[in-house]
Protein backbone atom coordinates (compact mmCIF):
# COMPACT_ATOMS: atom_id res chain seq x y z
CA UNK A 1 0.00 0.00 0.00
CA UNK A 2 1.49 3.28 -1.04
CA UNK A 3 1.31 5.93 1.61
CA UNK A 4 3.07 8.78 -0.06
CA UNK A 5 4.08 9.32 -3.62
CA UNK A 6 5.64 12.09 -5.63
CA UNK A 7 5.35 12.43 -9.41
CA UNK A 8 7.97 14.36 -11.33
CA UNK A 9 8.47 16.59 -8.36
CA UNK A 10 10.65 19.52 -9.36
CA UNK A 11 11.98 22.64 -7.70
CA UNK A 12 13.83 25.37 -9.51
CA UNK A 13 15.41 28.34 -7.80
CA UNK A 14 16.03 30.81 -10.59
CA UNK A 15 18.53 29.03 -12.83
CA UNK A 16 19.35 26.27 -10.39
CA UNK A 17 17.36 23.03 -10.48
CA UNK A 18 17.51 21.75 -6.91
CA UNK A 19 15.15 18.84 -7.43
CA UNK A 20 14.56 17.38 -10.87
CA UNK A 21 11.56 15.18 -11.64
CA UNK A 22 11.80 12.95 -8.60
CA UNK A 23 9.42 10.00 -8.32
CA UNK A 24 9.55 8.83 -4.75
CA UNK A 25 7.35 6.15 -3.27
CA UNK A 26 6.81 5.54 0.41
CA UNK A 27 4.97 2.36 1.34
CA UNK A 28 2.75 1.99 4.34
CA UNK A 29 4.68 1.20 7.48
CA UNK A 30 8.11 1.40 5.91
CA UNK A 31 11.21 3.30 6.83
CA UNK A 32 12.67 4.89 3.73
CA UNK A 33 16.18 6.19 3.84
CA UNK A 34 16.93 9.23 1.69
CA UNK A 35 20.61 9.63 0.98
CA UNK A 36 22.83 11.57 -1.34
CA UNK A 37 25.91 13.78 -1.25
CA UNK A 38 25.76 17.28 0.16
CA UNK A 39 23.67 19.59 -1.92
CA UNK A 40 21.82 16.72 -3.56
CA UNK A 41 18.46 18.27 -2.80
CA UNK A 42 17.32 16.12 0.14
CA UNK A 43 16.20 18.98 2.36
CA UNK A 44 14.49 20.71 -0.57
CA UNK A 45 12.59 17.52 -1.26
CA UNK A 46 11.55 17.33 2.38
CA UNK A 47 10.50 20.95 2.40
CA UNK A 48 8.25 20.45 -0.59
CA UNK A 49 6.57 17.38 0.83
CA UNK A 50 6.07 19.06 4.20
CA UNK A 51 4.74 22.25 2.64
CA UNK A 52 7.46 24.67 3.68
CA UNK A 53 8.16 25.53 0.06
CA UNK A 54 6.12 25.29 -3.13
CA UNK A 55 7.11 22.89 -5.90
CA UNK A 56 7.82 24.34 -9.32
CA UNK A 57 6.26 21.31 -10.98
CA UNK A 58 5.04 17.82 -10.18
CA UNK A 59 2.64 16.29 -7.70
CA UNK A 60 2.59 14.92 -4.20
CA UNK A 61 -0.05 12.40 -3.21
CA UNK A 62 -0.86 11.17 0.27
CA UNK A 63 -2.96 8.00 0.27
CA UNK A 64 -4.02 8.91 -3.21
CA UNK A 65 -5.11 12.45 -2.31
CA UNK A 66 -3.46 15.52 -3.78
CA UNK A 67 -1.43 17.46 -1.24
CA UNK A 68 0.73 19.31 -3.72
CA UNK A 69 1.41 22.88 -2.72
CA UNK A 70 -0.46 22.76 0.56
CA UNK A 71 1.10 25.15 3.06
CA UNK A 72 2.93 23.62 6.00
CA UNK A 73 0.15 23.84 8.52
CA UNK A 74 -2.30 22.17 6.17
CA UNK A 75 0.16 19.38 5.47
CA UNK A 76 0.31 18.71 9.18
CA UNK A 77 -3.46 18.51 9.35
CA UNK A 78 -3.36 16.09 6.44
CA UNK A 79 -0.87 13.93 8.29
CA UNK A 80 2.60 14.88 7.07
CA UNK A 81 4.99 16.32 9.61
CA UNK A 82 8.71 17.04 9.58
CA UNK A 83 11.49 17.62 12.03
CA UNK A 84 14.28 20.08 11.36
CA UNK A 85 17.95 19.58 10.82
CA UNK A 86 18.68 22.39 13.25
CA UNK A 87 16.16 21.94 16.01
CA UNK A 88 13.66 24.71 16.57
CA UNK A 89 11.98 24.36 19.93
CA UNK A 90 9.72 27.11 21.19
CA UNK A 91 12.07 28.66 23.69
CA UNK A 92 9.35 30.50 25.56
CA UNK A 93 7.35 27.34 26.30
CA UNK A 94 8.14 24.44 28.61
CA UNK A 95 8.82 20.99 27.19
CA UNK A 96 5.27 19.94 27.90
CA UNK A 97 3.79 23.08 26.42
CA UNK A 98 5.93 22.64 23.31
CA UNK A 99 4.29 19.31 22.67
CA UNK A 100 0.78 20.22 23.82
CA UNK A 101 0.62 23.05 21.32
CA UNK A 102 1.37 20.53 18.58
CA UNK A 103 -1.11 18.01 19.95
CA UNK A 104 -3.94 20.51 19.84
CA UNK A 105 -4.03 20.28 16.09
CA UNK A 106 -3.79 16.49 16.01
CA UNK A 107 -4.74 14.79 12.85
CA UNK A 108 -6.91 12.35 14.74
CA UNK A 109 -9.32 14.33 16.89
CA UNK A 110 -11.05 12.69 19.79
CA UNK A 111 -8.22 10.27 20.52
CA UNK A 112 -7.86 11.72 23.99
CA UNK A 113 -7.17 15.16 25.41
CA UNK A 114 -4.26 17.14 23.98
CA UNK A 115 -2.38 16.94 27.25
CA UNK A 116 -2.62 13.16 27.30
CA UNK A 117 -1.41 12.86 23.73
CA UNK A 118 1.47 15.17 24.57
CA UNK A 119 2.31 13.14 27.65
CA UNK A 120 2.34 9.93 25.66
CA UNK A 121 4.63 11.36 23.03
CA UNK A 122 7.04 12.67 25.64
CA UNK A 123 7.05 9.33 27.50
CA UNK A 124 7.84 7.58 24.27
CA UNK A 125 10.88 9.70 23.54
CA UNK A 126 12.05 9.52 27.11
CA UNK A 127 11.43 13.08 28.24
CA UNK A 128 8.66 12.18 30.67
CA UNK A 129 10.65 13.51 33.60
CA UNK A 130 11.39 16.90 32.09
CA UNK A 131 7.92 18.25 31.47
CA UNK A 132 8.44 21.50 33.33
CA UNK A 133 11.86 22.25 31.94
CA UNK A 134 12.54 24.86 29.33
CA UNK A 135 14.23 23.70 26.11
CA UNK A 136 17.35 25.75 26.85
CA UNK A 137 18.15 23.42 29.74
CA UNK A 138 18.12 20.30 27.59
CA UNK A 139 21.11 18.81 25.84
CA UNK A 140 21.15 18.67 22.05
CA UNK A 141 19.94 15.07 22.17
CA UNK A 142 17.19 16.16 24.53
CA UNK A 143 16.09 18.88 22.16
CA UNK A 144 16.07 16.46 19.27
CA UNK A 145 13.85 14.17 21.29
CA UNK A 146 11.59 17.13 22.00
CA UNK A 147 11.39 17.89 18.31
CA UNK A 148 10.46 14.28 17.71
CA UNK A 149 7.83 14.26 20.45
CA UNK A 150 6.34 17.43 19.04
CA UNK A 151 6.08 15.84 15.62
CA UNK A 152 4.55 12.68 17.05
CA UNK A 153 1.94 14.62 18.97
CA UNK A 154 0.45 15.86 15.73
CA UNK A 155 -0.65 12.30 15.01
CA UNK A 156 1.01 11.98 11.62
CA UNK A 157 0.74 9.27 9.01
CA UNK A 158 4.06 10.29 7.48
CA UNK A 159 7.05 11.46 9.47
CA UNK A 160 9.95 13.20 7.73
CA UNK A 161 13.12 13.10 9.81
CA UNK A 162 15.80 15.54 8.72
CA UNK A 163 19.15 14.35 10.04
CA UNK A 164 17.79 13.40 13.40
CA UNK A 165 20.91 11.50 14.42
CA UNK A 166 23.47 14.08 13.33
CA UNK A 167 25.48 15.63 16.09
CA UNK A 168 24.65 13.23 18.90
CA UNK A 169 27.09 10.75 20.41
CA UNK A 170 27.09 7.06 19.34
CA UNK A 171 25.14 5.81 22.36
CA UNK A 172 22.42 8.36 21.76
CA UNK A 173 22.42 7.51 18.09
CA UNK A 174 21.70 3.86 18.87
CA UNK A 175 18.88 4.91 21.20
CA UNK A 176 17.42 7.13 18.50
CA UNK A 177 17.52 4.31 15.99
CA UNK A 178 15.61 2.09 18.38
CA UNK A 179 13.13 4.89 18.96
CA UNK A 180 12.50 5.35 15.28
CA UNK A 181 11.87 1.68 14.88
CA UNK A 182 9.44 1.78 17.80
CA UNK A 183 7.61 4.69 16.26
CA UNK A 184 7.10 2.72 13.10
CA UNK A 185 6.22 -0.53 14.86
CA UNK A 186 3.91 0.79 17.57
CA UNK A 187 2.20 3.62 15.78
CA UNK A 188 2.28 2.46 12.19
CA UNK A 189 3.81 5.71 11.03
CA UNK A 190 5.68 5.64 7.75
CA UNK A 191 9.05 7.32 7.98
CA UNK A 192 11.35 9.03 5.51
CA UNK A 193 14.68 9.87 7.03
CA UNK A 194 17.75 11.53 5.71
CA UNK A 195 21.10 11.06 7.31
CA UNK A 196 24.77 11.47 6.71
CA UNK A 197 25.56 8.87 9.31
CA UNK A 198 25.59 5.84 7.01
CA UNK A 199 25.51 2.93 9.46
CA UNK A 200 22.38 4.35 11.13
CA UNK A 201 20.42 4.79 7.98
CA UNK A 202 21.54 1.57 6.40
CA UNK A 203 20.58 -0.54 9.38
CA UNK A 204 17.25 1.20 9.93
CA UNK A 205 15.90 1.56 6.45
CA UNK A 206 13.73 -1.01 4.76
CA UNK A 207 14.50 0.68 1.48
CA UNK A 208 16.84 3.43 0.38
CA UNK A 209 16.35 6.19 -2.16
CA UNK A 210 19.39 7.96 -3.54
CA UNK A 211 19.53 11.43 -5.06
CA UNK A 212 22.42 13.31 -6.54
CA UNK A 213 22.31 16.87 -7.85
CA UNK A 214 18.55 16.87 -7.72
CA UNK A 215 17.97 13.69 -9.67
CA UNK A 216 17.11 10.24 -8.34
CA UNK A 217 19.84 7.78 -9.19
CA UNK A 218 18.97 4.61 -7.32
CA UNK A 219 16.33 2.91 -5.27
CA UNK A 220 16.23 -0.42 -3.48
CA UNK A 221 17.28 -2.27 -0.36
CA UNK A 222 20.34 -0.99 1.46
CA UNK A 223 22.45 -3.86 0.13
CA UNK A 224 21.37 -3.24 -3.45
CA UNK A 225 22.04 0.46 -3.23
CA UNK A 226 25.47 0.14 -1.68
CA UNK A 227 26.58 -2.10 -4.51
CA UNK A 228 25.18 0.19 -7.19
CA UNK A 229 28.06 1.79 -9.09
CA UNK A 230 26.12 4.96 -9.81
CA UNK A 231 25.72 5.50 -6.09
CA UNK A 232 29.37 4.88 -5.40
CA UNK A 233 30.25 7.29 -8.19
CA UNK A 234 28.04 9.97 -6.74
CA UNK A 235 29.69 9.77 -3.37
CA UNK A 236 33.26 8.94 -4.20
CA UNK A 237 33.77 9.87 -7.81
CA UNK A 238 33.80 7.80 -10.97
CA UNK A 239 37.26 6.39 -10.42
CA UNK A 240 36.26 4.83 -7.15
CA UNK A 241 33.23 3.33 -8.84
CA UNK A 242 35.39 1.81 -11.55
CA UNK A 243 37.68 0.42 -8.90
CA UNK A 244 34.81 -1.08 -6.98
CA UNK A 245 33.44 -2.67 -10.11
CA UNK A 246 36.70 -4.30 -11.10
Amino acid sequence: MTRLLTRNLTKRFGGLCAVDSVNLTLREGEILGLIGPNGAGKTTLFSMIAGSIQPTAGEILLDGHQVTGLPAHRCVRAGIVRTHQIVRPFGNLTVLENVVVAAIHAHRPGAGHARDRAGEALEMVGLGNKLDHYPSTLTLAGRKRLELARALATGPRVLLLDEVVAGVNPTEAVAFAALIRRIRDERGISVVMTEHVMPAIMSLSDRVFVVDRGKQIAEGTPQEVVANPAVVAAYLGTEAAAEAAS
Partner: protein
Amino acid sequence: MMAWYQGPQARRFAVALVVVVALLGVLPVIGIDAYIHNQLTLLFITIAGALAWNWMGGFVGQISFGHAAMFGIGAFVSARLMLSLHLPVPLCWLGGAVVAGVFALGAHPLLRLRGPYFSIATIGLGEASRLVFTFWEKFTGGSSGLSLPIDSIMKYQLYWYALILVGLVAITSVAIRKSSLGLKLLAIKADADAAADVGISATFYQDLIFVLSGAVMGLTGGMYASYQSFIEPNDMFGFDRAISFVLIAVIGGVGVSLGPVLGAVVFVLVKIYLLTSHPDLYLGLYGLLLILVVLFEPLGLTGLYRRIARLVGPKRPAVGQAK
Protein backbone atom coordinates in the same frame (compact mmCIF):
# COMPACT_ATOMS: atom_id res chain seq x y z
CA MET B 1 -3.55 21.02 31.74
CA MET B 2 -6.63 22.82 32.83
CA ALA B 3 -8.95 25.11 30.95
CA TRP B 4 -8.19 28.76 31.56
CA TYR B 5 -11.03 29.23 33.91
CA GLN B 6 -10.12 26.38 36.19
CA GLY B 7 -7.60 26.16 38.97
CA PRO B 8 -6.59 28.24 41.97
CA GLN B 9 -4.93 31.02 39.97
CA ALA B 10 -8.06 31.56 37.93
CA ARG B 11 -10.17 31.61 41.05
CA ARG B 12 -7.88 34.17 42.64
CA PHE B 13 -8.07 36.34 39.57
CA ALA B 14 -11.86 36.10 39.43
CA VAL B 15 -12.19 37.08 43.06
CA ALA B 16 -9.75 39.95 42.69
CA LEU B 17 -11.51 41.21 39.59
CA VAL B 18 -14.94 41.10 41.16
CA VAL B 19 -13.73 42.87 44.28
CA VAL B 20 -11.91 45.59 42.38
CA VAL B 21 -14.75 46.20 39.95
CA ALA B 22 -17.28 46.27 42.76
CA LEU B 23 -15.24 48.74 44.75
CA LEU B 24 -14.65 50.97 41.78
CA GLY B 25 -18.27 50.70 40.75
CA VAL B 26 -19.46 51.85 44.10
CA LEU B 27 -16.97 54.71 44.50
CA PRO B 28 -18.93 57.42 42.69
CA VAL B 29 -22.05 56.51 44.60
CA ILE B 30 -20.23 57.02 47.85
CA GLY B 31 -19.00 60.31 46.53
CA ILE B 32 -15.77 61.33 44.90
CA ASP B 33 -14.40 64.50 43.41
CA ALA B 34 -15.59 65.14 39.85
CA TYR B 35 -12.00 65.51 38.67
CA ILE B 36 -11.05 62.08 40.03
CA HIS B 37 -14.25 60.61 38.60
CA ASN B 38 -13.23 61.80 35.15
CA GLN B 39 -9.60 60.77 35.51
CA LEU B 40 -10.68 57.29 36.50
CA THR B 41 -12.94 57.09 33.48
CA LEU B 42 -10.00 58.04 31.31
CA LEU B 43 -7.84 55.51 33.10
CA PHE B 44 -10.29 52.69 32.44
CA ILE B 45 -10.45 53.58 28.76
CA THR B 46 -6.66 53.78 28.54
CA ILE B 47 -6.19 50.43 30.25
CA ALA B 48 -8.66 48.78 27.89
CA GLY B 49 -6.80 50.14 24.87
CA ALA B 50 -3.41 49.12 26.22
CA LEU B 51 -4.61 45.61 26.99
CA ALA B 52 -5.93 45.31 23.46
CA TRP B 53 -2.62 46.49 22.04
CA ASN B 54 -0.82 43.94 24.14
CA TRP B 55 -2.66 41.10 22.42
CA MET B 56 -0.67 41.93 19.30
CA GLY B 57 2.46 43.35 20.80
CA GLY B 58 2.88 41.03 23.73
CA PHE B 59 1.10 37.79 22.97
CA VAL B 60 1.91 37.51 19.29
CA GLY B 61 5.07 39.56 19.49
CA GLN B 62 4.29 41.95 16.65
CA ILE B 63 4.93 45.50 17.79
CA SER B 64 2.39 47.81 16.20
CA PHE B 65 3.08 51.52 16.08
CA GLY B 66 -0.10 52.11 14.14
CA HIS B 67 -2.92 51.10 16.46
CA ALA B 68 -3.95 54.73 16.56
CA ALA B 69 -5.48 54.13 13.15
CA MET B 70 -8.09 51.81 14.59
CA PHE B 71 -8.52 54.02 17.62
CA GLY B 72 -9.21 57.02 15.42
CA ILE B 73 -11.53 55.13 13.11
CA GLY B 74 -13.57 53.92 16.06
CA ALA B 75 -13.79 57.46 17.37
CA PHE B 76 -14.86 59.07 14.13
CA VAL B 77 -17.26 56.36 13.08
CA SER B 78 -19.03 56.48 16.42
CA ALA B 79 -19.09 60.28 16.28
CA ARG B 80 -20.61 60.22 12.81
CA LEU B 81 -23.20 57.65 13.86
CA MET B 82 -24.18 59.93 16.70
CA LEU B 83 -24.27 63.08 14.64
CA SER B 84 -25.82 61.81 11.45
CA LEU B 85 -27.96 58.87 12.52
CA HIS B 86 -28.67 59.82 16.12
CA LEU B 87 -28.22 56.26 17.29
CA PRO B 88 -27.99 55.52 21.01
CA VAL B 89 -24.48 56.11 22.24
CA PRO B 90 -23.43 52.53 23.10
CA LEU B 91 -24.58 51.42 19.66
CA CYS B 92 -22.38 54.05 18.11
CA TRP B 93 -19.40 52.70 20.01
CA LEU B 94 -20.13 49.20 18.74
CA GLY B 95 -20.43 50.57 15.23
CA GLY B 96 -17.01 52.12 15.62
CA ALA B 97 -15.65 48.82 16.88
CA VAL B 98 -17.03 46.91 13.93
CA VAL B 99 -15.62 49.28 11.34
CA ALA B 100 -12.24 49.32 13.10
CA GLY B 101 -12.27 45.52 13.06
CA VAL B 102 -13.01 45.45 9.35
CA PHE B 103 -10.20 47.91 8.77
CA ALA B 104 -7.85 45.64 10.69
CA LEU B 105 -8.96 42.79 8.45
CA GLY B 106 -8.16 44.93 5.46
CA ALA B 107 -4.66 45.42 6.79
CA HIS B 108 -4.16 41.66 6.33
CA PRO B 109 -1.25 42.04 3.90
CA LEU B 110 0.74 43.68 6.69
CA LEU B 111 0.40 40.57 8.77
CA ARG B 112 2.54 38.56 6.40
CA LEU B 113 5.42 40.71 7.57
CA ARG B 114 7.60 39.85 10.49
CA GLY B 115 9.32 41.79 13.19
CA PRO B 116 10.79 45.13 12.15
CA TYR B 117 9.15 45.03 8.73
CA PHE B 118 5.75 44.77 10.36
CA SER B 119 6.51 47.49 12.87
CA ILE B 120 7.66 49.98 10.29
CA ALA B 121 4.71 49.14 8.08
CA THR B 122 2.46 50.01 11.01
CA ILE B 123 4.18 53.37 11.38
CA GLY B 124 3.25 53.90 7.77
CA LEU B 125 -0.29 52.75 8.43
CA GLY B 126 -0.69 55.24 11.25
CA GLU B 127 0.80 58.13 9.32
CA ALA B 128 -1.15 57.38 6.16
CA SER B 129 -4.38 57.15 8.15
CA ARG B 130 -3.70 60.48 9.76
CA LEU B 131 -3.10 62.16 6.44
CA VAL B 132 -6.02 60.55 4.68
CA PHE B 133 -8.50 61.28 7.45
CA THR B 134 -7.34 64.85 7.87
CA PHE B 135 -7.84 65.26 4.15
CA TRP B 136 -11.30 63.63 4.27
CA GLU B 137 -12.99 66.67 5.70
CA LYS B 138 -16.51 65.60 4.97
CA PHE B 139 -16.13 62.70 7.31
CA THR B 140 -13.87 63.97 10.03
CA GLY B 141 -14.29 67.71 9.83
CA GLY B 142 -10.66 68.11 8.83
CA SER B 143 -8.53 70.15 11.18
CA SER B 144 -11.62 71.60 12.78
CA GLY B 145 -12.68 68.21 14.00
CA LEU B 146 -16.07 67.09 15.24
CA SER B 147 -18.05 68.00 18.32
CA LEU B 148 -20.17 65.33 19.89
CA PRO B 149 -23.54 65.80 21.50
CA ILE B 150 -22.67 64.30 24.86
CA ASP B 151 -24.64 65.62 27.81
CA SER B 152 -23.29 65.65 31.33
CA ILE B 153 -25.40 62.69 32.44
CA MET B 154 -23.87 60.57 29.71
CA LYS B 155 -20.44 61.75 30.62
CA TYR B 156 -21.06 60.80 34.23
CA GLN B 157 -22.32 57.36 33.25
CA LEU B 158 -19.30 56.87 31.04
CA TYR B 159 -17.47 55.86 34.18
CA TRP B 160 -19.45 52.63 34.46
CA TYR B 161 -19.45 51.87 30.77
CA ALA B 162 -15.69 52.21 30.79
CA LEU B 163 -15.41 50.10 33.92
CA ILE B 164 -17.43 47.31 32.34
CA LEU B 165 -15.33 47.56 29.20
CA VAL B 166 -12.05 47.29 31.02
CA GLY B 167 -13.38 44.40 33.09
CA LEU B 168 -14.42 42.48 29.99
CA VAL B 169 -11.17 43.24 28.22
CA ALA B 170 -9.20 42.10 31.25
CA ILE B 171 -11.10 38.81 31.36
CA THR B 172 -10.55 38.36 27.63
CA SER B 173 -6.85 39.03 28.11
CA VAL B 174 -6.49 36.38 30.73
CA ALA B 175 -8.69 34.00 28.78
CA ILE B 176 -6.56 34.33 25.68
CA ARG B 177 -3.31 34.07 27.56
CA LYS B 178 -4.15 30.99 29.58
CA SER B 179 -6.02 29.08 26.92
CA SER B 180 -4.78 26.96 24.09
CA LEU B 181 -5.11 30.03 21.88
CA GLY B 182 -2.54 31.78 24.05
CA LEU B 183 -0.21 28.83 23.73
CA LYS B 184 -0.48 28.91 19.97
CA LEU B 185 0.21 32.64 19.96
CA LEU B 186 3.31 32.15 22.04
CA ALA B 187 4.49 29.46 19.65
CA ILE B 188 3.97 31.83 16.72
CA LYS B 189 5.82 34.50 18.64
CA ALA B 190 8.76 32.19 19.26
CA ASP B 191 9.05 30.82 15.74
CA ALA B 192 6.28 31.31 13.23
CA ASP B 193 7.68 28.82 10.72
CA ALA B 194 8.18 26.09 13.29
CA ALA B 195 4.63 26.76 14.45
CA ALA B 196 3.43 26.13 10.91
CA ASP B 197 5.41 22.90 10.93
CA VAL B 198 3.29 21.66 13.82
CA GLY B 199 0.05 22.70 12.23
CA ILE B 200 -0.51 26.27 13.44
CA SER B 201 -1.32 28.79 10.78
CA ALA B 202 0.47 31.99 11.78
CA THR B 203 -1.50 34.07 9.28
CA PHE B 204 -4.87 32.94 10.54
CA TYR B 205 -4.15 33.54 14.21
CA GLN B 206 -2.43 36.84 13.62
CA ASP B 207 -5.41 37.98 11.57
CA LEU B 208 -7.72 36.90 14.35
CA ILE B 209 -5.84 38.74 17.06
CA PHE B 210 -5.27 41.80 14.93
CA VAL B 211 -8.99 42.07 14.18
CA LEU B 212 -9.92 41.49 17.81
CA SER B 213 -7.33 43.96 18.97
CA GLY B 214 -8.41 46.46 16.34
CA ALA B 215 -12.08 46.14 17.18
CA VAL B 216 -11.50 46.69 20.88
CA MET B 217 -9.24 49.60 19.99
CA GLY B 218 -12.10 51.03 17.94
CA LEU B 219 -14.43 50.59 20.89
CA THR B 220 -11.99 52.43 23.12
CA GLY B 221 -11.73 55.15 20.53
CA GLY B 222 -15.49 55.54 20.48
CA MET B 223 -15.66 55.85 24.23
CA TYR B 224 -12.77 58.25 24.27
CA ALA B 225 -14.54 60.42 21.73
CA SER B 226 -17.56 60.55 23.99
CA TYR B 227 -15.34 61.38 26.90
CA GLN B 228 -13.63 64.25 25.12
CA SER B 229 -16.79 65.46 23.35
CA PHE B 230 -14.52 66.85 20.68
CA ILE B 231 -12.20 64.96 18.37
CA GLU B 232 -9.80 65.99 15.68
CA PRO B 233 -7.88 63.79 13.23
CA ASN B 234 -4.39 65.08 13.94
CA ASP B 235 -4.77 64.20 17.57
CA MET B 236 -6.67 60.94 17.24
CA PHE B 237 -4.45 59.52 14.55
CA GLY B 238 -1.37 61.26 15.72
CA PHE B 239 2.01 59.87 16.45
CA ASP B 240 1.76 60.66 20.15
CA ARG B 241 -1.47 58.75 20.41
CA ALA B 242 0.03 55.79 18.61
CA ILE B 243 3.06 55.54 20.79
CA SER B 244 1.17 55.94 24.05
CA PHE B 245 -0.18 52.43 23.71
CA VAL B 246 3.26 51.05 23.01
CA LEU B 247 4.71 52.87 25.97
CA ILE B 248 2.05 51.75 28.38
CA ALA B 249 2.32 48.14 27.46
CA VAL B 250 6.11 48.06 27.40
CA ILE B 251 6.56 49.95 30.64
CA GLY B 252 3.92 47.88 32.35
CA GLY B 253 5.19 44.64 30.92
CA VAL B 254 4.77 43.45 27.36
CA GLY B 255 3.31 40.02 26.96
CA VAL B 256 2.20 39.68 30.52
CA SER B 257 -1.59 39.63 30.76
CA LEU B 258 -1.98 42.43 33.21
CA GLY B 259 1.22 44.34 32.61
CA PRO B 260 -0.63 47.04 30.67
CA VAL B 261 -2.80 47.68 33.68
CA LEU B 262 0.20 48.67 35.76
CA GLY B 263 1.62 50.58 32.85
CA ALA B 264 -1.60 52.49 32.25
CA VAL B 265 -1.86 53.51 35.86
CA VAL B 266 1.70 54.77 35.87
CA PHE B 267 1.25 56.42 32.48
CA VAL B 268 -1.85 58.35 33.44
CA LEU B 269 -0.41 59.36 36.80
CA VAL B 270 2.84 60.52 35.27
CA LYS B 271 0.98 62.34 32.52
CA ILE B 272 -1.10 64.22 35.06
CA TYR B 273 2.00 65.13 37.03
CA LEU B 274 4.02 66.11 34.00
CA LEU B 275 1.23 68.12 32.43
CA THR B 276 1.19 70.34 35.45
CA SER B 277 4.89 70.70 36.13
CA HIS B 278 6.99 69.75 33.09
CA PRO B 279 4.73 69.42 30.07
CA ASP B 280 7.54 69.42 27.56
CA LEU B 281 9.43 66.54 29.04
CA TYR B 282 7.05 63.69 28.67
CA LEU B 283 8.30 62.42 25.31
CA GLY B 284 11.85 62.27 26.52
CA LEU B 285 10.84 60.69 29.78
CA TYR B 286 8.98 57.94 28.01
CA GLY B 287 11.86 57.43 25.65
CA LEU B 288 14.12 57.03 28.64
CA LEU B 289 11.73 54.62 30.30
CA LEU B 290 11.58 52.55 27.12
CA ILE B 291 15.35 52.36 26.99
CA LEU B 292 15.60 51.41 30.65
CA VAL B 293 12.93 48.76 30.35
CA VAL B 294 14.48 47.18 27.28
CA LEU B 295 17.96 47.08 28.71
CA PHE B 296 17.29 46.19 32.29
CA GLU B 297 13.84 44.78 32.85
CA PRO B 298 12.19 43.44 29.72
CA LEU B 299 9.02 42.72 31.59
CA GLY B 300 8.74 46.28 32.79
CA LEU B 301 7.01 47.00 36.01
CA THR B 302 5.55 43.54 36.14
CA GLY B 303 9.06 42.15 35.92
CA LEU B 304 10.15 44.31 38.82
CA TYR B 305 7.18 43.14 40.79
CA ARG B 306 7.98 39.52 40.02
CA ARG B 307 11.57 39.92 41.08
CA ILE B 308 10.48 41.31 44.38
CA ALA B 309 7.88 38.57 44.72
CA ARG B 310 10.50 35.91 43.99
CA LEU B 311 12.75 37.24 46.69
CA VAL B 312 9.92 37.22 49.15
CA GLY B 313 7.71 34.28 48.20
CA PRO B 314 7.92 30.55 47.47
CA LYS B 315 9.89 29.16 44.53
CA ARG B 316 8.23 28.64 41.14
CA PRO B 317 8.12 25.07 39.86
CA ALA B 318 9.44 25.66 36.32
CA VAL B 319 13.07 24.84 35.65
CA GLY B 320 15.24 26.97 33.43
CA GLN B 321 14.44 30.29 31.81
CA ALA B 322 11.84 31.10 29.24
CA LYS B 323 13.35 33.06 26.41
